């Protein structure tokens, strides 16, 4: 559970300092797993409300033909963001179609869609959920009052309320001493009564992995862990934008064999595209 899988991945053009960063990070991750990680060791902390780069529109292209349904995306998300039990940024959805023996399994990973016209940010009474310049939908934990309207409104079930559960309820156990690195580790350890407990939480495309310019030092956890390279992640605004993990051109991937988005008919305009099986 607590061993982050910082697996190697093919180098990509934009991130130059990634390798040295990764070395530090991997060390931190291991240390974290051993429960000796300190807040300072978790990489450069960036402010939680950073707006990202307006030149970018980060998005995903998920190639279902490459997906082997290993669910490493879910596990790596858990260890990257240290989400408590009952909170899921990323889930793997499986459905069986047809009747035996003529059946077929449909399966896909579901991160937050980071919708251009998101229902959650629209209904949030305090503006705690907001759109960053780079299209990522983030939550300002200090503004969030925990009303859960966004959960009711999200058509993708991509948000979860932090009910304050821990994997091991006993106080002082090492698993609860590993800080989360989300939002630049500014929230770190959870504690009773303080954010993010009592807040609504969601996938942020691992925005804490961005550098000061808003470029990704390394891909989001689910992307870099995907062993079939099914999840491509990159800039959708730039027509020549490439996947920061695998180097393919995002637009070429989309054009290659057609694509679809989940619940397109609702008009939320997700930034996550699926390539059919």
């Amino acid at each position: 559970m607590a061993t982050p899988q910082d697996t190697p991945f093919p180098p990509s053009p934009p991130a130059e300092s990634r390798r040295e960063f990764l070395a530090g990070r991997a060390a931190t991750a291991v240390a974290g797993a051993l429960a000796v990680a300190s807040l300072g060791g978790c990489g450069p902390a960036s402010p939680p409300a950073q707006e990202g780069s307006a030149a970018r529109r980060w998005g995903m292209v998920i190639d279902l033909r490459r997906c082997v349904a290993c669910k490493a995306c879910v596990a790596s998300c858990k260890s990257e963001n240290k989400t408590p039990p009952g909170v899921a940024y990323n889930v793997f959805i499986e459905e069986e179609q047809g009747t035996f023996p003529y059946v077929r399994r449909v399966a896909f990973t579901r991160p937050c869609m980071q919708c251009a016209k998101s229902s959650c940010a629209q209904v949030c009474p305090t503006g705690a959920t907001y759109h960053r310049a780079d299209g990522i939908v983030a939550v300002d934990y200090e503004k969030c009052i925990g009303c859960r309207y966004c959960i009711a409104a999200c058509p993708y079930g991509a948000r979860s309320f932090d009910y304050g559960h821990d994997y091991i309820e006993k106080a002082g156990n090492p698993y609860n001493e590993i800080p989360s690195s989300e939002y630049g580790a500014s929230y770190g350890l959870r504690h009773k009564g303080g954010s993010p407990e009592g807040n609504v939480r969601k996938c942020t495309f691992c925005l804490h992995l961005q550098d000061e310019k808003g470029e990704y030092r390394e891909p989001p956890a689910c992307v870099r862990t995907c062993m079939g390279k099914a999840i491509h992640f990159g800039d959708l605004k730039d027509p020549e934008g490439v996947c920061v993990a695998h180097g393919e051109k995002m637009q070429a991937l989309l054009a290659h064999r057609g694509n679809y988005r989940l619940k397109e008919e609702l008009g939320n305009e997700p930034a996550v595209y699926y390539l059919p099986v």
Partner: protein
Amino acid sequence: MSESNTHAPAGGLRLLGYLVLAALSLVGLKAIIGTLADGHGALATTQHVPWGLWVALYIFFLGLSAGSFLLSTLIYVFGMKSLKPVGPLALLQALGCLLLGGLLIILDLGHPARLANVILHMNPTSAMAWMGIFYNLYILVVLVELYLAMRPRLIELASAGGAMSRWYCLLTLGSSNTSAAALARDQGWLKALGILGIPVAIAVHGGVGAIFAVTKARALWYSGLFPIIFLISALASGGALLTFLSVVTLKVPEEQKRKIVRLLARLTTGILCFDLLLLASEILVVFYGGLPHHADGWRQVLFGPYSWVFWGLQLALGTLLPILIVGGRRTGQSMKWLGFAGLLGVLGIIGARLNIVIPAQITPMFPTLPEAYHHMRYAYGYFPNSTEWQVGLGVCALGWLAFVLVRKCLPLDGQEHSATASSGGGEA
């Protein structure tokens, strides 16, 4: 229900009732403190059903409030003189239910201490933020109206002497002018505030309806008819409670009381019938089209595991039976029966509110989402747990006790200046 009796029931029974209410209140208070201290881990709500019993009770109380306020405007804005004795009672009901609902919804927040963010960092595209604004405005309107409606009686009682005169003197806020001109000015203000209050009350409760109606992710809610059904059922519920409370507490001459109660009961019944029409229209359209995600929510309501809430509580007990009672040749004349019909209407509305909030959320956003993550917060379905019931029932009991108490301290009836009528002594 012994309380539906026009005359005070036996003292022992009454005492027992108060003891039960006090016990429920204490249990509720304990659960409230527990929730505030330990957070929401004690709730049964899930990531599919983020809103549960408390939200349903919140809209129940808000509906009772908006409904009775709008009925009070019949008196203060539209000059319906015959209902005047229930004016202060209607306004008190509007205020009390508003506060009870507010308590529940604040408890439901993950970070109740940040409530002010709704105003400080208001997001103008959020129906909930607008509801917050109008909620505050509405409290102000109701408070000032209640003061103005009671002012002449307060001044009268303050000068009457006795143990309570000090208290009444305090409540007058220093005002002592009961000249005809001052009374006329009061009426002018009441009318002006009532006129302002009508759109505000509609905005508060219609706004709560809109919170649900704009949520396209939950197809059952996503209907332009929804805020209207909200308002109409609010009127019906407010009228039903006011009918019940009038039967139980109003102290005016018997003949006048009979007139008032019958008028209220008939008004409420008419609104209930209109509510039924809207509901039928919505359901028929949904099932005729049969869009899967749309019909699914209603299928939960009509045929799901808790369909008895719709057929039994909301429709039979809460709508049809009251209509039959009020329409009945003998029962329609009896105070007891009309009060009982009012009580039934209120109980039925709880069913309606539960049916609004919960079934629409039961079906997860993807059918197999509950299997994708194995945890109680991702489990399919929802039923309130004991903590939620304790708080819900506790708040209802607290409200009832507070009403009993406040009634003794406020001149709620006898608006007609009958200085000699000892309206405080009948109870005890």
